[in-house]
């Protein structure tokens, strides 16, 4: 898999340079937001993180279905790798949200619908890995994890819609704001473009982590099979 190695290398350098460029752009070039001032800059970490979390668990959802349908081990490996990366992004999402909340709302945490459903996602996928670790049969593990993965990902649309369905402390979406049928993000272009750039870079970073983890996972399973052959 020489080409895979190359792709990972490109993604690695893409994320390093991209994250660096976005950081410099955000801290050195961007004007301050009127009402929040400096603390608004954490948005360039918080928003890309939630987009990556959504994508990671969407991949889990897709490949869990694919596994149950085709029973190809590689689909389960992709779902597992993506769930691991997604869990890290979800933790980062909760952490950046708490820091931002402290400076703007005046509290690290409240039990409103947006925050609670996000924590729920984190807990479901902690359970997902416990489930994987507790099953010894590889096929059974993949089957059970796929089912839990599919159910767990149903929380994503709930998280996304929570700010519209219920009264929350968390404000509604800025990026996906729709006004009279058309997408209309409620922020000026000089704040919006770096946000889009940071989101793209974060997705590249996600893809890098996913492929790296998948490669490791494949090698680990190959090694396990070889060890099993030696022992027999």
């Amino acid at each position, binding site marked *: 898999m020489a080409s895979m190695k190359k792709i990972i290398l490109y993604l690695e350098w893409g994320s390093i340079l991209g994250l660096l460029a976005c950081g410099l752009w955000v801290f050195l070039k961007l004007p301050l937001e009127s009402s929040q001032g400096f603390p608004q800059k954490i948005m360039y970490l918080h928003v890309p993180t939630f987009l990556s979390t959504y994508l990671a668990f969407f991949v889990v959802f897709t490949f869990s279905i694919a596994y149950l349908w085709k029973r190809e081990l590689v689909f389960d490996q992709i779902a597992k790798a993506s769930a691991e990366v997604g869990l890290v992004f979800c933790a980062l999402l909760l952490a950046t949200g708490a820091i931002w909340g402290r400076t703007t709302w005046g509290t690290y945490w409240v*039990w409103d619908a947006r925050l609670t459903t996000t924590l729920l996602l984190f*807990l479901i996928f902690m359970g997902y890995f416990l489930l994987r670790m507790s099953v010894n049969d590889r096929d059974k593990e993949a089957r059970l994890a796929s089912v839990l993965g599919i159910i767990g990902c149903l929380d994503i649309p709930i998280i996304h819609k929570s700010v519209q369905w219920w009264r*929350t402390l968390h404000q509604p979406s800025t990026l996906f704001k729709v006004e009279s049928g058309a997408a209309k993000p409620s922020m000026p272009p000089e704040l919006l473009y770096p946000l889009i750039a940071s989101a793209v870079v974060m997705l590249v970073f996600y893809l890098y982590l996913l492929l790296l983890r998948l490669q490791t996972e494949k090698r680990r399973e190959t090694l396990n099979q070889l060890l099993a052959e030696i022992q027999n």
Partner: protein
Amino acid sequence: MKTRTKFVIGGAVIFAVIAALSVQGLQEMTVFFYTPAEVLASPDEFENKTIRIGALVQKDSVEWDAQAIELSFKITEDSKNFIPVFYAGVKPDLFREGQGVVVEGKMKGQRFVAGQLLVKHSEEYTVETDHKKSKEDYYRSIQAQ
């Protein structure tokens, strides 16, 4: 203890937390705060009960006593139903007139005594047209603190 038993216990704990969050959280979560109109409509129901009210800070209603660290203001969401709020604590950075707030506390007669004051910021982001000036002002303001 066998590894498997540990995982089963760990899993059970996580699912118990999830279940508890869902049951307890769902009621609290779906209505994180009431509006002033709802509270004023049924005063008996809310009297002496810890609740949250979310609304905007009425213009020209803020009285800040820096000596006693006491904050009084009126909140409304429709400019028709007002509730006077009393809060003994530090004014949050983003607290200002016209700002969305969520106060947690109890109705004491006509007045709401808040134990916690949270600022609810909007999804609108704007920048000052004079970037340089606002940046300087901002850094000066944090140095002054």
